[in-house]
């Protein structure tokens, strides 16, 4: 195992190196590769993950946080690359809803990611050269399979809770469908059981922006010493609009001008909203890999839980012992409430144990990452009730 660890750590990008220095990782699939949905066997592969708190004696307090498209395992601490605070600091930490004093919290960088888990940045063990676009296309189910392999490796039989928003929510649904006996509670937030045409369309715009950047070099930009910064930045700008509501944009920026008193009659960032988006785009390039963006958006596009179960979503949850609690936000137009409601209908169709909370918020899709007291309050109540049923003590 140790020898493979070394080879799997070859050819790291800077961000990956910084990330791996600050989290744990495991090398899996050396003996038994991961069979991906596309038919390719992947192995060995590296999984980078972070944990908070400790596993209790009867191994019943593990909580898996599934991260969204461009997030990573650094849930509740300063980010090793950006220096920013943890992306779910509002939910995870001492005294918070997910308190490490009570739960063993795990977050795993997804397969195809760029914060330490194997993705297009990694070296193809067969050739010793970076995968880049030769990396197999992975799916949400593949990501979840890799996570399950890691839990096996860590000796965690089942999870008290699997929770995540957006693509994280898709993983939660996949977990509940694929490993119902390993998931005591499932909390899919601001997500859908399949990616809509509109969402695929937005992703395609982003991917085309990346691939149209001459610096992208058919995905081999690292070997050419270039970065498709313009393309990735435009992809992020487009995506970022979909994370906000119209009201939030209007409230934040309106038609306010940026560093000027009058229109510039040119194409500089006259408006604050333009300046804001450009900033979002350029900072994103510093922390995220363009090829990884292609792969992970593709995984979301391919997600369609019903189609994997004979076209009937309810079949994915038949006989599920899991307690579900879904959340949506009123102003989220990327994953609107009706998408969550469809999941609820499917869960009702198999009489699963389900709660569904719609949170009144004007912050759009991003609301799931923000301070939403109503979400925290209801989630805390749901987890408390479930912990009682599970017999979880207050302190491990």
């Amino acid at each position, binding site marked *: 195992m140790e020898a493979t660890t070394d080879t799997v750590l070859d050819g790291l990008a800077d961000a990956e190196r910084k990330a791996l220095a600050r989290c744990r990782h495991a090398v899996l699939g050396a003996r038994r590769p991961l069979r991906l949905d596309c038919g390719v066997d992947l192995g060995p592969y590296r999984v980078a993950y972070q944990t908070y708190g400790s596993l209790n004696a009867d191994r019943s307090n593990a909580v898996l946080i599934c991260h969204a498209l461009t997030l990573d395992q650094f849930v509740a601490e300063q980010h090793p690359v950006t220096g920013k605070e943890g992306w779910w600091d509002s939910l995870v930490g001492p005294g918070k809803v997910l308190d490490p004093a009570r739960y063993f919290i795990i977050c795993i960088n997804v397969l195809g990611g760029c914060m330490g888990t194997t993705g297009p940045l990694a070296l193809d063990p067969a050739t010793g050269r970076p995968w880049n676009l030769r990396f197999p296309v992975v799916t949400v189910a593949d990501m979840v399979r890799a996570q399950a392999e890691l839990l096996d490796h860590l000796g965690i039989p089942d999870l008290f809770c699997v929770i995540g928003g957006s693509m994280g929510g898709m993983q939660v649904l996949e977990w509940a469908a694929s490993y119902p006996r390993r998931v005591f509670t499932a909390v899919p937030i601001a997500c859908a059981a399949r990616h809509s045409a509109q969402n695929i369309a937005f992703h395609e715009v982003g991917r085309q922006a990346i691939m149209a950047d001459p610096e992208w070099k058919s995905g081999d930009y690292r070997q050419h010493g270039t970065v498709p910064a313009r393309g990735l930045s435009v992809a992020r700008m487009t995506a970022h609009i979909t994370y906000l509501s119209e009201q939030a944009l209007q409230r934040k920026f309106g038609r306010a001008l940026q560093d000027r008193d009058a229109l510039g009659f040119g194409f500089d960032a006259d408006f604050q909203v333009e300046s804001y988006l450009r900033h979002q785009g350029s900072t994103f390039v510093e922390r995220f890999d363009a090829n990884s963006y292609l792969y992970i958006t593709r995984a979301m596009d391919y997600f369609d839980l019903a189609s994997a179960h004979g076209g009937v979503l309810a079949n994915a949850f038949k006989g599920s012992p899991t307690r579900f*609690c879904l959340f949506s936000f009123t102003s989220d137009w990327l994953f609107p409430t009706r998408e969550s409601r469809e999941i609820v209908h499917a869960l009702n169709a198999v*009489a699963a144990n*389900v*709660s569904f909370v719609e949170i009144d918020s004007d912050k759009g899709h991003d609301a799931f990452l923000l301070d939403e007291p109503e979400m925290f309050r209801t989630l805390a109540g749901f987890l408390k009730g479930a912990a009682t049923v599970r017999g979880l003590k207050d302190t491990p």
Partner: protein
Amino acid sequence: MNAIRVDLQLIADMVEPATRALDVGCGDGSLLAYLVNSKRVDARGMELSQAGVNACVANGLSVIQGDADADLRDYPDDAFDYVILSQTLQATREPREVLRQMLRVGKRAIVSFPNFAHWHVRLRLVFGGRMPETPSLPYKWYDTPNIHLCSIDDFRGLCRDMGLAIERAIVLDRNSTPINLPPLLANLLGEQAVFMLRRG
């Protein structure tokens, strides 16, 4: 354990311990909480108001937003031992279909409703000449959610038409005290009623 409203207690008493129940229109979840905590019932709730849903979930109860008319049809046959509809039947668009769905989804249905033939109601209409407003029907005619009011005898009639078996019928007076009277008097003196039904 906190005490619950008398009519809810009567319903709770009809539910066997350690069974499965769905409370349609569960409000603040007090009946659900009682069933879960005192009778170990696997109890789920459905509630129209999102504020009510959120309050229930925050109390650790399994509740979704939904209404009796639209959402009961999602559930499979025989999913629950009991489907409970407390003080809500008169506010549904299609009470007959709701009852049918309740007894498809549940082995038994427990229904409570205000009696529109209570003497108080009769007096208000006959002598006051106005739409009745009473403690159990505290609305103006133009803002009431109660669009399908019925009397206890009306309800018995519907059960007969639908071929449903009445396992229990409890009639309550103005103080929510059960009263034991012949049907004609019960329909006059009962302010509300609780029925437990099963498929005939």
